[in-house]
């Protein structure tokens, strides 16, 4: 397993470089212009000069090479400087966003807290709800609980957040005035009251997001449990006189986790990626909102950097999922 992990990690480097290149080419090919948001009152010649000031005049391969250098050398140097107070990166040009001509990592660092708070919490809440619900609905297939669960999760999944988000805002923020409709990113949790406020402002977005994730996860959990509950080893285990609890929660659960682990592992990078629509609806202004505004403004360095970080996380978590498969099912071998 260790050699497998090391081999995969080594193989990940060329993969990621290739992904970076594909993303770069894709963004280059996509129609769009960083000047699209500049008002029409600004004449074309001025826009052209602004483009050149952004470095757009240079050929494509040079810009890609510069980005690689900046991402893998200058930005880590900056992190090093910030940690140890050195000045290795001084005077070296960092990855600059086209929207504000400031280093992209400043914006990313500002966004991570709220994304982790909101999307991360929603994910944890969703897993905590979905796994037991999935297990129980499968165990009591076609019971009232299962039917109700199916109904709620299916409706939850088929109603998109641009609708459910606005709906909960209208009910809970406009009519009942229980929760704020706009997330305050500058809020600092330094007291019990501040914490309560934080919980209040997180409640609606977390609810909308968690519903979406729970729906999906509990479906896979249920289906997988159902598959395994019919297996012969379950009969054997019961015949051996094992307690029902142990049969379901140890034997069946462990074997049912493979598809669920995949779904969870695939989802973790998306925590970092944020939830574009939900963040937009509740003004959480996290990574998702950063990405979508960057895409709309054709801020290529920002989009490239964000999607690349996203790609790194995806590759890492898929590797993690593969390792987990091996642990969950010792029969799976990669060597």
């Amino acid at each position, binding site marked *: 397993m260790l050699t497998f992990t090391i081999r995969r990690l080594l193989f990940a480097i060329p993969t990621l470089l290739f992904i970076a290149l594909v993303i770069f080419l894709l963004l280059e090919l996509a*129609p*769009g*212009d*960083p*000047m*699209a*948001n*500049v*008002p*029409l*009152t*600004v*004449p*074309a*010649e*001025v*826009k*052209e*000069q*602004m*483009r*050149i*000031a*952004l470095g757009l005049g240079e050929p494509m391969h040079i810009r890609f090479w510069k980005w690689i250098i900046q991402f893998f050398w200058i930005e880590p140097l900056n992190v090093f400087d910030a940690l140890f107070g050195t000045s290795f990166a001084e005077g070296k*040009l960092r990855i*600059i*966003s086209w*929207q*504000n*001509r*400031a*280093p992209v990592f*400043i*914006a990313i660092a*500002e*966004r991570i807290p709220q994304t982790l708070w909101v999307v991360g919490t929603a994910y944890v809440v969703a897993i905590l709800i979905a796994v037991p619900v999935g297990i129980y609905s499968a165990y009591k297939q076609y019971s009232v609980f299962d039917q109700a669960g199916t109904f709620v999760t299916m409706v939850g999944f088929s109603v998109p957040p641009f609708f459910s988000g*606005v709906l909960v*805002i209208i009910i809970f*923020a*406009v009519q009942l*005035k229980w929760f*704020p*409709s*706009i997330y*305050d*990113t*500058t809020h600092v949790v330094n007291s019990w009251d501040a914490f309560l406020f934080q919980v209040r402002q997180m409640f609606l977005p977390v609810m909308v997001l968690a519903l979406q994730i729970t729906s999906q996860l509990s479906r896979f959990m249920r289906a997988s449990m159902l598959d395994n509950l019919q297996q012969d080893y379950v009969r054997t285990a019961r015949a051996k006189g094992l307690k029902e609890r142990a049969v379901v929660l140890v034997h069946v659960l462990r074997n049912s986790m493979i598809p669920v682990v995949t779904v969870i592992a695939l989802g973790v990078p998306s925590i970092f990626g944020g939830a574009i629509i939900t963040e*937009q*609806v509740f*003004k959480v*202004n996290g990574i998702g*909102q*950063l990405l979508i*505004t960057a*895409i*709309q*403004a*054709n801020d290529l360095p920002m989009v490239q950097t964000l999607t690349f970080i996203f790609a790194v996380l995806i590759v890492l978590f898929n590797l993690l999922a593969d390792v987990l498969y091996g642990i969950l099912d010792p029969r799976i071998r990669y060597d």
Partner: protein
Amino acid sequence: MRTRTALMCSVAGALLAQMAFADGHEGERGRDGEVSIIYWQAPSTLNPFLSGGTKDVESASLILEPLARFDETGTITPWLATEIPTVENGGVAEDLTQITWKLRNDIVWSDGTPFTSEDVKFTWEYCTHPEGGCAQITKFEGVESVETPDAHTVVVNFSAPKPYPYTAFTGGESPILQKAQFEQCVGAAASTCTEQNFGPIGTGPFVVTEFRTNDVISYAANENYREPGKPAFATVNFKGGGDADAAGRAVMQTGEFDYAWNLQLAPEVIAQMEEGGLGTPVVGFGPLVERIMLNNTNPDPALGPDERSVIRPHPFLSDPAVYNALSMAIDRPLLVEIGYGQAGRVTCNWVPAPEAFNSTSITCDTQDLDGAKAMLEEAGWVDSNGDGVREKDGVELRMLYQTSTNAVRQDFQALIKEWWEEIGFAVELRNVNASVFFGGDAGSPDTFQKFYADVEMYANTFNGTDPQAYLANGLCDKAPQPSSQWQGENISRFCMEEYDALWNELSQTAQFEERTRIAKELNDMIVQNGGMIPLVHRGRLSAHANSLGGIKLNVWDSELWNIADWYRIDGS
């Protein structure tokens, strides 16, 4: 006993205070706590020279100020200058090549250092540096040099007579930067100055305390602001992002915010929000016009990429009967009612504001479907093969009608398509993602400049109150072409010798009445000769909380131009 006295005193005090502040809402600086503003487009920088976006210009206008501003009526008023220089008061040279600004001598930057003419000169140098990519460089067009005879005098020399000299250093787009702060940030170095761009030092009523790009800005009252007792608010919370819907709701229904910018929402939705009772919409009209541009060139896909939308004429849109019929078939009052409500007016003009420039010679406020049909009939456009589409000499009236993606525009498309089909056109609709449509990417076939369609709809406006540069958008040589990378502002590819000649006359005329006459004539010329079909004169609709006083919606300058005068209305 003692408590009672104390009580009486405090009551008397409150009464006194109320009496004193009843009219002027005066008092000490920062007395009203926090005001919160929401812009559904989030500011990305506080340096308006690097971005040019309205959101960035307006969020910076709390800090950075120009020498003169336009007030809510569009009148130019001195701001950091003592008076507006004119030919009459000697501030503008007789030959129109020089303007002299006298600066107020009581202004200090928020860091306490004095504001001088050197800062003004530096601003010009900063923006005109060839490697800086300054978004507001047109403000300095024709400026040959800036001189500083003394600390409070600025002399601007123009290379040619400038009939309208109030561009450089006036209005929210052209504020003054502090030389000491930005000295190291000129040209290519602009990108390395994140700290400066995110926290400029200004002379305005507020200073930045925290800037989070594309998210939120926190401001605090400027302790060195020139007027004592202003601003009334101690802090400003400026939130960005989301959509107009949520912004309007946060002000008018939940009361979480005090001011929401530019609510482009359906009139019914605004009315519904207003019922929330917490806020009020305010409307101001600048020169923004929603229009349909008529392609004067042939957009046939069969032509090659270098000929499509380049070769004249259009197969049928060059016929006056066709474009006049298209205009007559439109029910403009209905469009206003459905799409914009109180934030729209019927207009037949390209330049509907300022009032002095608004031509009255064209009328278009009644729909006339029968008249349109008769006009086409008369010109020989008849449906001879019975497919519901008129044709003449084998040319059928089939059009592609494109616009950017936007709920109101798609409603307009649906209505107008129906009217046009009724008078015998066949109309295909297309909507394009706004960031592609308005982007100048020469590689994309879907930009509004390329105009690979027969007609397209969007809105445009101009800054300030003088339309000369805007009217230049009708000149022949401004048509986008492959040779110019499809750049150019003459989107309809309108071309008329008389128009070019008359515009040249405008550029040499200084006398105001004469300028308005020529401008109106130019406006009529382009509208009547198939350049465009103006639809709606669009206003800016913003909303403020009922407890917020002092709002004067300004469409000629930054909307937040008078935030120093905003205050909290007592008792709410």
